[in-house]
């Protein structure tokens, strides 16, 4: 299959991107300044991320759609305000996670942002669950550009007046060169920021305006170190159909009302795991010294019994040390528990720690 390119591909090339294939797309992993500098620039200034490979699924419908989506997602969608967003997941009957996503209430329905690697499968699952009753559009005529970091609000507000008035996890339509953009105040870096859904034809000129105003292009490499420092899950690493939201420590994302009443896909398993406790649970891991424990590193107890596995591990540029997340047996999940990590045949000491590794800088919460 031919590799897909986003509408910013030429701009990435002009900015000396190193490319990797990700979910069938040619995406920039880093630019000339490198992952650590790109990471730090995002934390201190404003980074631009091309996330156009992600799915932008528009589903059109009225209250019937809202009701049907409540049978699928563990959210209180009836009370979700217009232009408000929620983090959620698409689950199977056992509460295994097909994908994690952001869903936003629009006047004419909902917008769901999906992972690139999962979007086609998600579309099939959702069409089948919704029995093709509603118009569903996976909009590949639109690009998705994230702008993240403390200066992003100031920079984006120069281009889209009043964008600064948006609350965290809420969005609105804006006009840019006579076209409609949908902007949400959200992101996946642990920083204040925005995600801009824009037509492919305007994506490059819009991004150039951000660049002229001082933001810089940031690759997927730094996106990964940023989200890991922020303690955020990544599909295919922390999340899979073998893992439930309770095990992934994402209970906070399930609406309280829905936990009592159930009635969404996977609710039986979720309710029983909350009652009886999950066997494994996602934790933060801080290796001692500078050792990096990558994905699939085996985790042992102090008495050298295997208790779990690392799902993501790297060097955290803002933490200035190695960081990891993984799943361990519940009894070893308390903070400060001493564990061992097996790297290249040797076992090294590490500690279970709280998340995030890096404190968030989000603006005031919307709800």
């Amino acid at each position, binding site marked *: 299959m031919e590799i897909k390119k986003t509408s910013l591909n030429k701009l990435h090339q002009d900015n000396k991107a190193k490319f990797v294939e990700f979910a069938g797309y040619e995406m920039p992993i880093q630019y000339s300044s*490198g992952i650590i500098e790109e990471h730090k620039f995002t934390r201190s200034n404003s980074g631009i991320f091309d996330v156009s490979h992600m799915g932008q699924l528009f589903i059109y419908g009225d209250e019937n759609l809202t009701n049907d989506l409540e049978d699928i997602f563990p959210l209180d969608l009836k009370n979700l305000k217009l232009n408000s967003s929620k983090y959620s997941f698409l689950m199977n009957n056992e509460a295994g996670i097909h994908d994690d996503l952001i869903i936003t209430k629009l006047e004419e329905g909902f917008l769901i942002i999906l992972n690139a690697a999962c979007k086609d499968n998600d579309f099939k699952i959702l069409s089948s669950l919704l029995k093709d009753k509603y118009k569903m559009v996976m909009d590949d005529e639109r690009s998705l550009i994230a702008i993240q970091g403390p200066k992003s609000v100031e920079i984006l507000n120069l281009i889209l007046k009043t964008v600064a008035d948006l609350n965290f996890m809420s969005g609105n339509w804006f006009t840019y060169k006579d076209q409609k953009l949908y902007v949400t105040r959200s992101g996946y870096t642990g920083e204040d920021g925005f995600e801009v859904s824009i037509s492919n034809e305007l994506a490059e000129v819009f991004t150039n305006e951000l660049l002229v105003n001082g933001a810089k292009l940031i690759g997927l490499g730094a996106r990964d170190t940023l989200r890991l420092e922020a303690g955020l899950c990544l599909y295919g690493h922390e999340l899979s159909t073998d893992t439930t939201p309770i095990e992934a420590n994402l209970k906070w994302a399930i609406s309280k009302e829905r936990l009592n009443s159930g009635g969404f896909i996977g609710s039986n398993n979720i309710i029983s795991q909350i009652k009886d406790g999950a066997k494994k649970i996602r934790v933060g891991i801080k290796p001692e010294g500078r050792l990096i424990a*990558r994905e699939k590193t085996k985790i042992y107890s102090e008495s050298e019994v295997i208790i779990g596995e690392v799902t993501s591990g790297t060097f955290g540029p803002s933490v200035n040390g190695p960081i990891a997340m993984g799943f361990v047996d519940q009894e070893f999940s308390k903070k400060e528990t001493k564990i061992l990590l097996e790297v290249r045949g040797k076992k090294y000491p590490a500690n279970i720690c709280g998340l995030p590794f890096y404190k968030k800088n989000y603006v005031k919460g919307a709800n």
Partner: protein
Amino acid sequence: MSDVKYSKEHEWIKVEGDIGTIGITQHATEMLGDIVFVELPDVGSSVEKDGNAGVVESTKAASDVYTPISGEIMENNQAIVDDPGKINSDPENEAWFFKLKIKDSSELDSLMNKEEYDKFAKESGN
């Protein structure tokens, strides 16, 4: 510097008498990206030509370091263990990896000179 030779695994070796100083090339650091961890062979251990002699890790991945020449490790560079970023900033000088006592100097014959290596690095693209 005529006494520096290069391997296809992107290591350099500078020979002074029977002592070789080994590190990784500028080209290697550009491919690896930001280096954040390094593991070096222990002083006193023996390493075999083209065998494992440490690990470097970038923010992205771990890569093995190979020795271009067999010998006994005389010294390793703790400064790059404490600050792996030095490998990116000065890979072919200050950020050497280890020094070894060369076991068989004829092994040097299979290595490339600067001109040959530059051509190799450019053509291989990796």
